[in-house]
């Protein structure tokens, strides 16, 4: 873990593609989220095997999914994660907050702020893949029943963190596996546009 603390998305390589940048962002989020999970686990003395239940609902992965579907899938999952995380942070502050702000709270804030950036990146990629008419995934069906029992709330928050961790990792892998088709298409489009400009 410690060896990953120097991660950065500010690559010096100016030719880095949008999927690669999104993948780096997802990787960084995954790293931060892993740390957050670890801190929460230590704080609440939870073991790793508790609260293993999926909360995000997306179509199952398949090798037949095209780039657009893959992007749509992770984009949708990340949107649900964002809703869950915002709720979890709010409820935790409200019900379980201890007053003191420490490393855990700082890390939680960092993850909460970084997740929208990844969502923005995947959304951009999705737009690029779908053209101008982008179908934004809906989060209406997301189950946001927050437990009233404080201990259940702790478990629920833990599950949310696990979910964010899982989907940030999935996003990393998906974005890394994406061919730079989008970029190529964009590049092609740009070249065509340039040719047109030259003719004029």
């Amino acid at each position, binding site marked *: 873990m410690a060896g990953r603390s120097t991660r950065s998305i500010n690559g010096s390589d100016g030719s880095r593609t949008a999927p690669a940048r999104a993948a780096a962002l997802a990787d960084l989020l995954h790293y931060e989220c892993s740390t957050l999970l670890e801190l929460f686990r230590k704080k609440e003395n939870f073991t790793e095997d508790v609260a293993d239940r999926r909360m995000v609902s997306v179509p199952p992965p398949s090798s037949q999914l095209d780039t657009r579907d893959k992007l749509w899938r992770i984009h949708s999952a990340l949107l649900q994660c964002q809703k869950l995380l915002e709720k979890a942070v709010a409820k935790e502050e409200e019900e379980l907050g201890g007053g003191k702000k420490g490393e855990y709270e700082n890390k939680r804030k960092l993850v909460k702020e970084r997740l929208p950036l990844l969502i923005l990146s995947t959304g951009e990629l999705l737009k690029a893949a779908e053209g101008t008419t982008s179908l934004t995934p809906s989060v209406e069906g997301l189950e946001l029943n927050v437990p009233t029992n404080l201990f259940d709330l*702790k478990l629920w928050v833990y599950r949310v963190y696990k979910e964010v961790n899982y989907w940030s990792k999935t996003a990393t892998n998906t974005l890394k596996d994406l061919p730079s088709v989008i970029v190529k298409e964009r590049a092609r489009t740009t070249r065509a546009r340039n040719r047109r400009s030259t003719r004029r």
Partner: protein
Amino acid sequence: MKFFFLQRNKHGRIIMITWLLLLSLSTTSTQDGQENSVLRCGPQNVTLDYDSFLLKWEDDPSCSVIRDGLVYELQLLTADKPVHNGEVVVTPAQIGSTHSWKWTSHLPSQCARHSVRLRSQYNNQSSPWMQKMLPDQGEILVLPRNQIFKVGSTATFCCTVPDGESIKTMFLLNYKGANVNATKISEHVHSLTVHLDQESENWSDVICEISKGNISGASFHASYPPDDSDLQCETRDLESIDCFWNVGRAANEHPAMERIYQLQGSPCINGHSGKCSQKVEVDTVERNWTLTATNRLGKLELCDRANLTKRVHMVAPEKVAASTVNPRNISLKWSWTVQKYSNFNLTCQVDVSDGDSNTKVFQTENFGVGLTAAVIKDLIPHWDYDVRVRCGTAQHFWKWGDWSKSVKIRTKGDVPDALDVWMKVKEDQTVISWKVPLANQSHGEIFDYKVSWAKTKEKNQSNQTNVSRSNHSLTLTLDPSEEYMVTVTARNINGSSSPSTIIIPRLNLDKSEVKTSWISGSNGSFFLSWPVSPNASCGYIVDWCPVFGNCTFEWMKVPPNRTHTTIFSKNFEDGRRYLLSIYACTERAPVLLQRREGYVRETKIEGELFKLKNKQEDSAVEVSWEPIPLEKQTASIHGYILYYQDKSGDVFNVSTDDPEATSLTAKNLNISTYNFTVTALTAVGLCGNTSIIVTLNPLADQLIMLTLISLGAVFLILSVSIIICYRHWACIKHKVYPPIPKPVLTDQWLTSPDEHTSHRLHFDQSHYSEVLDVPKLYDKFRPPQPVVSQDYKTFTFSQTRKGYYNKPLKKLQPCLTLPTTGLTSQPGLPTSPINGVFPNPSYNPSYSLVMHGEDREFKSGPEVHERIPFIRSFSGYQPQSPDKTFTTAELEENPESPISCVSTYILLPQKTSN
């Protein structure tokens, strides 16, 4: 089968519909030959809150036709046995809404398996029981949940699982208390009892685990009820009340334990800070002022009974400023923002601080009704001050109000203070010195100093001079036989200071008969005390300066009532000797009382202090040195030690306690090399070690004396020997040359030579390594008169047969040469090789053995004696063995000789002209 008949009305159709609906409310069933009517209108969407045992449900839609209300019957079962019954009456208006029932029981319910069931009743018809189990299928229930406990209490938690499940373990998380007791009540129920002996940091948990990862739990928090204390209320503006208290431990640290404060029933917004203010009507009535603090564990009420007019905590004065500024006083004024203060009798403190150092100078107190001004006196002219004011009520004083903001004020300038003047007289030179006026004495920038002096008897003939401000002393050449009066003043922009006068006495003070005593410094200072002097009408003056080097003197003045002081000076140096003088200040000239000399702090004297010389006297060595100059004495020398060490390493020492000593002597030394070290004895140890190496010389005089004594002894022995020899010369002669009877020459003597065989005389010369000439012997020797006649016919000479030796040739070679001439053979005698010259190359020809007879002299040569032993001695004769030592020859004594005496010839070689 039962029928419900409703009132007939005009609207037969409506009646008909209602009748049909009512008919649909119940169904008839036949069971065991009995007919039971079952009400369809019953509960639905039943929920149970485990924490509060609050049961909620709704009516079935079929209940909506009931116009006259219905009743719900409820039963609580513990271990499947009914333990409590209840009912909820639903009015017609309530039909269709959510109903609830809360079970409150004195029984500890958590650790028993519970269920609750309910059904509706209407017109003796009942709906089927609807049961809610605790816990529901698939649930792990840990109770109580989300509870807050008092620290010190004991909490019991129960874990219940449905049938078919079993509990693996139950334990505590996030709580540091160790007093935990887990009990297995059954396979489905476990309990955990915790004695809450400390506060929870956050929400603690009780965990119940069925299998790995399958857990449930309940959170709890242990804390304290409010423990605020010491409520105190006051007013500042006489229109509101301000209350303060101690908030107690861990107030509001945990959100669940937030305390709610109320003062006089009104909420306090920032109560957790321990302060609450409210607008009130302030009057002179003494009232109870009440604060309540509430949290989830309890409520606390604090009271303070007070008349607020006696609890006035004044606000800070506003617009503090100086209305009048003088050199030594100022007038202050200020105003009040609270107009009601003007009715109060006030006391105000004015705090005066040094403007540069911010150190407090003094405080003054002023009184008055509605006080808004004060005068500050005793200030220093031309000085910066920081001034601030605070006030309180003079009557029923409660506490001081707030300080006003500080105001900077500078007083006006004034003439300088009188100078502190002292003098030092040395012969006809008198140094007048004055201390540099400090900023609080100059009252403005000093321009210069004016010094005037005159003989006391001629005051009119005064001399004066101005001294620039950078100088603080003046050397005057005064007549020592006259008394002078010197006056010094300082000038600044405001004028001249008061004159400072000092009288220079006629006689030099330093030559007085006052003896100097020793003083030791401590902690970088000198402590001085002296007896009271009746002359000291204006106190005492103590001055000091180093004993050696330039005497830049310093002084201090001591008031008349004190006879001791401690002297500090930034100019004091360790290891330097100071002379301190105590004077009595009189109306006339100062009088010297005492003198002290000493060090503020003695330091070790550096090595190689001495210039050593040494002087040997017999077996003693005196090591001397030059007197040690005072400037080299960084510590007082109490004596000296001379260490000396010989080659064997033994160390000896001699010492002296005389600090004036300049030599030490080491005695009884051996003729050897010594290392002498001289060291000074001081209070800080042995210092200034200096060494020399001295090699003692042998005693030459003694050797000479010894030689002379030896020579004298030899001379004495020789003299005695000579005397003895002289006294016994007759004997010696007799022995050496016994008297020889005159030969009687007869024919027989000639004819019977065999009968008169000559005796060979042998004498031992081996004792003489040198042939000595003995003049006396030469003179005295009288060999027997040989009688040599013409008739002498036979001459026999025989060499010694046994051991007749000459002296070693080599020793005598330079001086012994047998003469080749001078020896004449007697005519008529037979010529014989031995009857003539005995050639001996070693024999000095200048020397000849000359023997003197009584009446004649004869050359050495064999004497022919008849019938008499013939004695012949030849020095240097080496007939056979020239290499051999000339040794003794036996002296064959004549048995007829009357004296047996061995005599020797001692010949001393004599120089000859040739």
